[in-house]
């Protein structure tokens, strides 16, 4: 199994079993291809519910300084989307059970060709896409190409999204619905917005997709706090900061940090 339905099933399974469901994010090619494969392996061994792997873009408007810098480091390798899919493919050979979704900006996919991107993504066993600058209003061409192919297209909703619009977006979103925890860009935060859990409670009642929360989440307290109110959390910038600091030997530290977030590693 793979794609949207698999992501959904796996998230629900984690929930049912009471496992803490984390979706770690890192940027591919930061600092290079080999390191990314090594990081993915260490991350995979921390039992993530899924993994979000970014493909770098020169102008990432939804991202804060941490991921911007990661993308600059990644772009030094002049990566192609084909090479990205090679990483996906190699990862999936070793960890077929972990869903992998691609995060990138629309121009990359547009330039590669929508149909070709989808076809080659399926061949590489990628499970879905998150495209932060593709709102539902602009997504028809992409969704048309995707129809019946089974890959997830995960849409984001934000605190500024009115509830009627949120319900509409949820209907288009497959795999899960990505709730942006705060009005802003990606990046680790000390505290999350006060009304977040209240909002999540409300949203949960409106949608049938798994609800995943991202942006700002960087501490075990955040993970514990949000756990009753959503189905998984995305942790990105906090991991990317480790890569920024440790470089290509960051693998074990990424692993330890994920266990620490789940409070399963007493030495951290």
């Amino acid at each position: 199994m793979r794609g949207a339905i698999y992501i959904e099933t796996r998230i629900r399974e984690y929930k049912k079993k009471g496992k803490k469901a984390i979706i770690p994010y890192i940027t591919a090619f930061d600092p290079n291809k080999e390191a990314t494969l090594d990081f993915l392996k260490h991350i995979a061994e921390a039992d993530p519910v899924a993994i979000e792997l970014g493909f770098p873009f020169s102008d990432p408007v939804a991202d804060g300084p941490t991921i911007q810098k990661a993308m600059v480091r990644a772009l030094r390798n002049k990566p192609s989307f084909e090479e990205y899919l090679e990483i996906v493919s190699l990862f999936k050979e070793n960890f077929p059970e972990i869903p992998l979704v691609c995060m990138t900006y629309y121009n990359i996919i547009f330039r590669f060709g929508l149909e070709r991107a989808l076809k080659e993504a399926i061949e590489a066993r990628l499970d879905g896409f998150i495209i932060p600058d593709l709102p539902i209003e602009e997504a028809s061409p992409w969704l048309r190409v995707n129809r019946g192919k089974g890959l997830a297209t995960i849409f984001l909703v934000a605190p500024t999204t009115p509830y009627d619009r949120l319900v509409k977006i949820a209907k288009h979103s497959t795999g899960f619905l990505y709730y942006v925890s705060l009005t802003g860009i990606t990046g680790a935060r000390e505290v999350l917005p006060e009304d977040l859990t209240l909002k999540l409670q409300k949203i949960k009642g409106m949608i049938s997709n798994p609800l995943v929360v991202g942006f700002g989440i960087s501490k075990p307290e955040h993970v514990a706090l949000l756990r009753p109110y959503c189905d998984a959390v995305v942790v990105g910038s906090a991991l990317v900061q480790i890569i920024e600091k440790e470089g290509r030997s960051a693998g074990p530290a990424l692993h330890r940090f994920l266990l620490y977030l789940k409070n399963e590693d007493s030495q951290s």
Partner: protein
Amino acid sequence: MAMPNRCGYFDKYGGRYVPETLMPLLFELEHVYKKIRKDKKFWKEWRELLREYAGRPTPLYYARNLSEKLNGHLKVYLKREDLLHTGAHKLNNTIGQVLLAKKMGKTRVIAETGAGQHGVATATACALLGLKCVIYMGAKDVERQALNVFRMKLLGAEVCPVTAGTQTLKDAINEALRDWVTNVKNTFYVIGSVVGPHPYPQMVRDFQSIIGIETRAQILKREGRLPDYVIACVGGGSNAMGIFYPFIKDPHVHLIGVEAAGLGLSSDQHSATLNRGEPGVLHGMLTYLLQDKVGQIKGAHSIAPGLDYPGVGPEHAYLKDLGRAKYEAVDDQSALQAFQILSETEGIIPALESAHAIAYLIQNFHSLPKESIVVINLSGRGDKDVAQVKDLLEEKRAETI
């Protein structure tokens, strides 16, 4: 068909490719702007400010000396946007948008700027209308344009240097978008050209159309007929869109946009997006972009800081595909030469941006039919460029010795 359509497209180009956080705000802006477009009181207030405060209408000047220098075959007119307050056409748009921001109850205005002209124009409008103003500017540009940075500060604006990416205009736009995503509730983003997500390309075009509306009336009064050619430089494309738009339905008026060929179209050091770019998505719009095979955006280059943008307004992309406007390119050296020629022949120092339009005419006047009437949009004055030009000419002189 009215352009843009309901979804903000000029045929294939335009749209709203932004993070979801901004979408509700863009819908609100679109809704408010739709009402404002029919609100006579709003336009009256805007026109009054432009007349009393900014100095509109600007003259349409018959450039006799330049016409004679070009063999006397043509009549060349200059639309003198360089005489507008702050020295360029930018204020038409910023006064409009800042007025709109006030109507929407926003208390804080942000803007991006490359060379500083749009930043100065936004800071000016904010000083006039009493709004807090934050300007994002690439760190490299902050260094190169120290005087404009000081101007903005004098006008009460806060200037934020942007150290991400190429540290130029495109990164300033990215950072302004990030600020907007973060402070969406109280903040209005004043975009400086006919770019960005819908409804910006339409809105900025509407505000800048005053240039073409005046030109049309002035040339009819003066010559009793419409011009044969309208020429304007194109970076993002706001001054060109402003002067083209009221002539689009006059098929006999040739519209020519002049892009910056920088060090040459084959050099990879240019800003000729429509000549050398390919369709893609950046800054909320689908349009022609300078990009590599993968879809990474390339840096743009021009001697004119206001032209070095790797994208272009979606309506220009549409006019290009339609064949209604022609887009040519002129390199740094030709622009520099035109800068000197206009200064010497007419006593007008043009902005290096506008010098591209002049240079196109100087290069091509012999192929235009005799008795043609040509209007060039002189979008800005060149005071801001004199220090740079001085250095460049001294360098050149040193080389020849």
